[in-house]
């Protein structure tokens, strides 16, 4: 039987953490995502599944709790919003360097600085280009609905473990706060000790009597060895780029123009393309679901077929650079964005599009 509920995005992600079988959540309150920990605490996850929930003293502490928890073989998750995610960058770099699976959720708000608490997409560069120091990548997935917010929490557990790589869900205050119908997936069991032993032989939870000790570190003082490690990481990222690209094509079959937008912006654009189609202009949307790996090939494949690309973001223009790179300047790429937590209306997006491609 289907389990349907009306939930906020933040609550749906919290419920999904329990159901996906995460072992631990560590976080620090920040608007617009505080409902995640509030929901978890109210649900008593320790009683439901044995999941640990802890309010840390800061985002610096929570990301390092993830580092410890993930290093010890457990499936762990944190959530925060933009300023808190900035504080986590050092820890994320260590986690990526040590190749630890975990999930970090960024419910973005307006920036820079303390900014405001309205929805934004201004942390795109930080999320997809690395964010902290060193050459590394997070797998970045962007939900556009409450349903996907829930589903991607489960997907993240699979992907992070498959590649021993941190995953980020990059969402925003609107998707976090809005209520929609969501079909909850059934409860998954947390991993048993036997499963951890088998699937994560590198994890530090006590040296096996018959085996070598395990070490979790991102340190390698010999440049040649560190370079070899970096090469290995880059090879892993190439595999991820090959296997894990996800996107949605909306009304692209006959499209003469392609909108490119993710998350909430893609929802706004759906209304815009409807308005444009009513006027007889054939437009479609490519919605990247994975922001890293970026759906380059599909965009490139449309470059010869359409008259232009129109990128819409809730920032001053970040993903647009990746679209330009993907289409290799073979076709015109224009951009429209609002910043600071201002949501563009479908009508103003249409106007901006018409101005760009008259």
């Amino acid at each position: 039987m289907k389990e349907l509920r009306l939930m906020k995005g933040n609550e749906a992600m919290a419920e999904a953490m329990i159901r996906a079988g995460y072992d631990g959540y560590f976080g620090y309150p920040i608007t617009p995502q505080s409902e995640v920990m509030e929901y978890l605490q109210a649900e008593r996850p320790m009683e439901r599944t044995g999941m640990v929930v802890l309010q840390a003293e800061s985002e610096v502490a929570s990301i390092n709790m993830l580092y410890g928890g993930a290093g010890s073989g457990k499936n762990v998750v944190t959530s925060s919003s933009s300023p808190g995610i900035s504080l986590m960058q050092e820890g994320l770099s260590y986690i990526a360097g040590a190749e630890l699976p975990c999930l970090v959720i960024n419910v973005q708000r307006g920036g820079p600085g303390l900014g405001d608490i309205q929805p934004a997409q201004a942390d795109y560069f930080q999320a997809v280009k690395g964010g902290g120091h060193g050459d590394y990548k997070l797998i970045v997935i962007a939900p556009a609905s409450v349903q996907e917010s829930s589903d991607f929490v489960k997907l993240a557990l699979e992907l992070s473990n498959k590649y021993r790589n941190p995953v980020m869900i990059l969402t925003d205050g609107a998707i976090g706060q809005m209520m929609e119908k969501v079909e909850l997936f059934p409860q998954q069991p947390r991993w048993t000790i036997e499963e951890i032993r088998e699937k994560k032989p590198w994890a530090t939870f006590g040296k096996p009597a018959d085996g070598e000790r395990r070490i979790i570190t991102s340190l390698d003082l010999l440049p040649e060895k560190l370079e070899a490690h970096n090469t290995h990481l880059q090879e892993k990222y190439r595999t991820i780029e090959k296997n894990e690209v996800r996107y949605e094509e909306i009304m692209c079959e006959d499209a003469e123009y392609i909108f490119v937008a993710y998350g909430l912006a893609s929802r706004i654009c759906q209304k815009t393309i409807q308005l444009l189609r009513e006027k007889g202009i054939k437009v479609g949307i490519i919605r990247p679901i994975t922001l890293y790996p970026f759906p380059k090939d599909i965009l490139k494949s449309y470059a010869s077929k359409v008259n232009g690309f129109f990128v819409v973001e809730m920032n001053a223009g970040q993903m647009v650079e990746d679209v330009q790179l993907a289409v290799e300047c073979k076709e015109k790429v224009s951009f429209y964005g609002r910043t600071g937590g201002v949501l563009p209306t479908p009508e103003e997006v249409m106007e901006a599009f018409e101005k760009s491609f008259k």
Partner: protein
Amino acid sequence: MYTELIKPENLVYTKTKVMTDKELSYCPGCGHGTAHRIIMEVIEEMGIQGETIGVAPVGCSVLAYEFMNIDVQQAAHGRAPALATAIKRLWPEKYVFTYQGDGDLAAIGTAETIHACNRGENIVIVFINNGIYGMTGGQMAPTTLPNMKSSTSPYGRDETEMGHPLKMTELVANLPGVYYVTRQAVHKPSHVRKAKKAIRKAFENTAKKTGVSFVEIVSNCNSGWKMRPTDANQWMEDNMFPYYPLGDIKVDGLFVNK
């Protein structure tokens, strides 16, 4: 003549198997190696090599995992107590300890230290206080003594400008989440024996789930202090011990009356 002596019944000391055979990277005379050894001996004696997870800091002991034959995670600078918190909460039956220098624990990691202590995490914190940043070449630490010279206080630590030496151990002793607080040294055999007893007590405490056990070891840094090892030990006795007096501060959750 010597072969006569090499008999099992004459054996009085042997290196614990919980130390690896890797040559220590520490300066000759440095206390870090001795501190490692007594922790590993306690782990061997308690039979918990397979049940213990260590968390190494950033500092001279960043490579502790090379020498400790147990599962170890190497933390970011100052964050060891956050890692240890999560490991212990997710594996409540294991023994978890951090090993941290004074820069790591009392400067960049002050928040993580205080809050792990305040939450009463069931972990052991071993705090190596040598009054200086050894690894980065002898800069001033929060624990550097008044008027003490370092590379970033070349004319001595001026307390009016550079603040006062931080007694982190006394500070955390005030927190109800902290069950055992003691200050030890490892520069002489008698001190090594006492320090080892303290570490054993700390590890035994964590099994009781009574909160943090915090063991400070006042140590030397002959390289950073720019002294010969023997002079460094003498200087430590003459200058560090008066400011950081050795002995128990809190035992079984109660302050020790002196």
